[in-house]
C-alpha cells in the first residue's frame, strides 16, 4: 500500500506545525522521517494514521492490502501504549475483539504474533512485569495481529537502551525482509534511519517543511558489510549536515520560548 500526502498544512491554534508537505510513501518502502524536536513529526504521523485531523491538505492511501488485513494503517508507539490491566495475550486480543473473526482464527493470530516476537512464554504476564524491549515487542506483535498494509512508527525505539534498540532493529529488519510492509518511521536517531530506511525525509524546524529526501542505495540486508560503509558514511554526513543547523536553531528557539 502507498500513502500520498498532498499540500498538507497543520496548525494547533496559532502554532503552525506543518507547512506545504507533499510526500508519497511508496509501496513496500521504509521511509524514515527525521527532523528537530517539535517540528511536527508526530503530528505528521497522526495525520497519516487518521487520528489527527489536518488543517488543510489531503492524505490518501492506494494499492493492495494483505489477505486478512483488519487495520490497513497501524501504529507502533514510542511509549508502547499497552493496557496495563491486560495480559500480553489480552493486549493482542484487544485489537481483534471488535472484528467478527472465528474464535480459532483469533487465537491463531494471537499465537502467531506472540511466537514470532518470542513472547509465547510471557503471554500471561502483565506489561509491568516485562522489560521495555519486551513491551515494544508486544506492541509489534499487536500490530502484526491485524496484518497491516502500512506501519506508522513514532520513535519506536526511543524509550529503550542501546542494546535493546539494536535487538529490536534486527526484529524490524526481519519483518521487512519477510513482509515488505510499507512503513513511515519517525526517529531522532540517524543510525536507525541508516539501518532501516530506503529513503530518509528531512524536515526543517517548526513549521516543519520538507527539506530534502535522501535515498539510501545500499540494500537493507547488506548495510553491516564493510563494502557498504563508504556509501553509508556519505549519506550520514549529508543527513547530519542537513539537520545540524536546523537542530541548533530549533534548540535556541526552544530556549528563547
Amino acid at each position: 500500500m502507498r500513502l500520498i500526502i498532498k499540500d498538507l498544512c497543520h496548525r494547533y491554534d496559532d502554532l503552525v506545525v506543518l507547512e506545504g508537505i507533499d510526500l508519497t510513501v511508496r509501496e513496500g518502502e521504509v521511509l524514515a522521517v527525521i527532523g528537530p524536536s517539535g517540528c511536527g513529526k508526530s503530528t505528521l504521523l497522526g495525520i497519516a494514521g487518521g487520528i489527527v485531523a489536518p488543517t488543510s491538505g489531503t492524505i490518501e492511501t492506494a494499492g493492495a492490502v494483505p489477505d486478512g488485513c483488519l487495520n490497513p494503517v497501524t501504529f507502533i508507539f514510542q511509549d508502547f501504549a499497552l493496557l496495563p490491566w491486560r495480559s500480553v495475550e489480552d493486549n493482542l486480543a484487544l485489537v481483534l475483539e471488535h472484528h467478527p473473526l472465528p474464535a480459532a482464527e483469533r487465537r491463531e493470530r494471537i499465537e502467531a504474533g506472540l511466537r514470532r516476537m518470542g513472547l509465547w512464554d510471557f503471554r500471561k504476564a502483565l506489561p509491568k512485569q516485562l522489560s521495555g524491549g519486551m513491551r515494544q515487542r508486544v506492541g509489534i506483535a499487536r500490530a502484526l495481529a491485524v496484518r497491516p498494509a502500512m506501519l506508522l512508527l513514532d520513535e519506536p525505539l526511543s524509550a529503550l537502551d542501546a542494546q535493546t534498540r539494536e535487538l529490536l532493529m534486527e526484529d524490524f529488519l526481519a519483518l521487512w525482509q519477510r513482509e515488505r510492509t510499507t512503513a513511515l518511521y519517525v526517529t531522532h536517531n540517524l543510525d536507525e534511519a541508516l539501518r532501516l530506511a530506503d529513503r530518509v525525509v528531512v524536515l526543517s524546524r517548526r513549521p516543519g517543511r520538507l527539506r530534502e529526501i535522501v535515498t539510501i542505495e545500499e540494500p537493507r540486508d547488506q548495510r553491516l558489510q564493510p563494502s557498504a560503509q563508504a556509501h553509508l558514511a556519505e549519506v550520514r554526513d549529508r543527513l547530519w549536515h542537513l539537520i545540524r543547523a536546523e537542530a541548533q536553531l530549533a534548540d535556541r528557539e526552544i530556549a528563547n520560548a
Partner: protein
Amino acid sequence: MPDTSLPVTPAQPVRFRGGGFTVRTHRWAALLAFAVLIAVWESTNRFGLVSPLFLPPPSAVAKALGAMVADGSLWQHLKASLMRIGVGWAMGTVCGMAVGFAMGIGSVARAVGVPLVSAFFPIPKIALLPLFILWFGIGEPSKFATIGFGVFFPTVIATYSAIDSVPRNLIRMAQSFGLPWASILRKIVLPGALPGILAGFRITASIALILVVAAEMIGAEYGIGAFVLTAGNLMLTDQLLAGVLVLSLLGLAIGTVLSILERRLLKWR
C-alpha cells in the same frame, strides 16, 4: 605508572553516611502503644483519677458492649444503620457515577456540570435533612436522601477526574486500531478510571458513615447514632462509648472491604 605530581595519601576506609531517613517497619510498636494506652486509661479509673461517669474504663465499655450483643440490641441498631448506609450510598454512587461519566466524556455535560457541582458540593448535606424530612417524611427516605446526596457529589468529582486521568495515548491507540466508541469506553476508559473511582469510594464511605450517625441523631428510633444519643441523654457513658466503638469498627470494616476490593481489581498496578 603512578602519577608522582599528586600528593600521596594513605588508604582510608569509606565512611558510611547513608543512614536514617528510611522507613522501617516496627510490627509490634503499634500494638504496644495500644496496650499502653488502654492500660493507662483503665488505671486512671482504678486509681480514681477520673470519674467513671465522664470516662468509663475500657473494661466497663467492653461489658456494656457484651450486654448489647447478648440482648440483641446491638444487631437491631447496627442493622438499621447498615441498611441506611447501604441504600443511601448505593443511590448516591450509582447516580454520581452516571453523572461523572457523562461529565468525563461529554463536553456539554461537563460545561453544565462543573459549575453546578462546584456550587452544591460545599453544602453540609446534613443541613438539608430538615428539608428532606419535609419532602419525604421523618422515616427512612429522608435519611437515604441525605446520605445519597452527600455521597453523590464526591462520586461525581472522583469519577470525572478519574476519567480525565486515563492516559490519552491509550485512547488514541484504541482509536487507531478502529475500536468502536462503546468498546473504548468499556475496555479503556472504565478500567483506566477504576483506581480513581475506588479511591472515591473510600471518601464516600466515610461520608456515609458520618451522615448516617448525624441523621439518626436527628430522628430515629433505631440505629447506632440514635443509640449513642440516647445513651448520652441518660448519662450512660459506658454504653455511649460502646456505640462509638461499634462505629469505629464499622468504619474499619468498610475500609478493609475496600482494600480487598482494590487489591482484587487493581492487581495490575
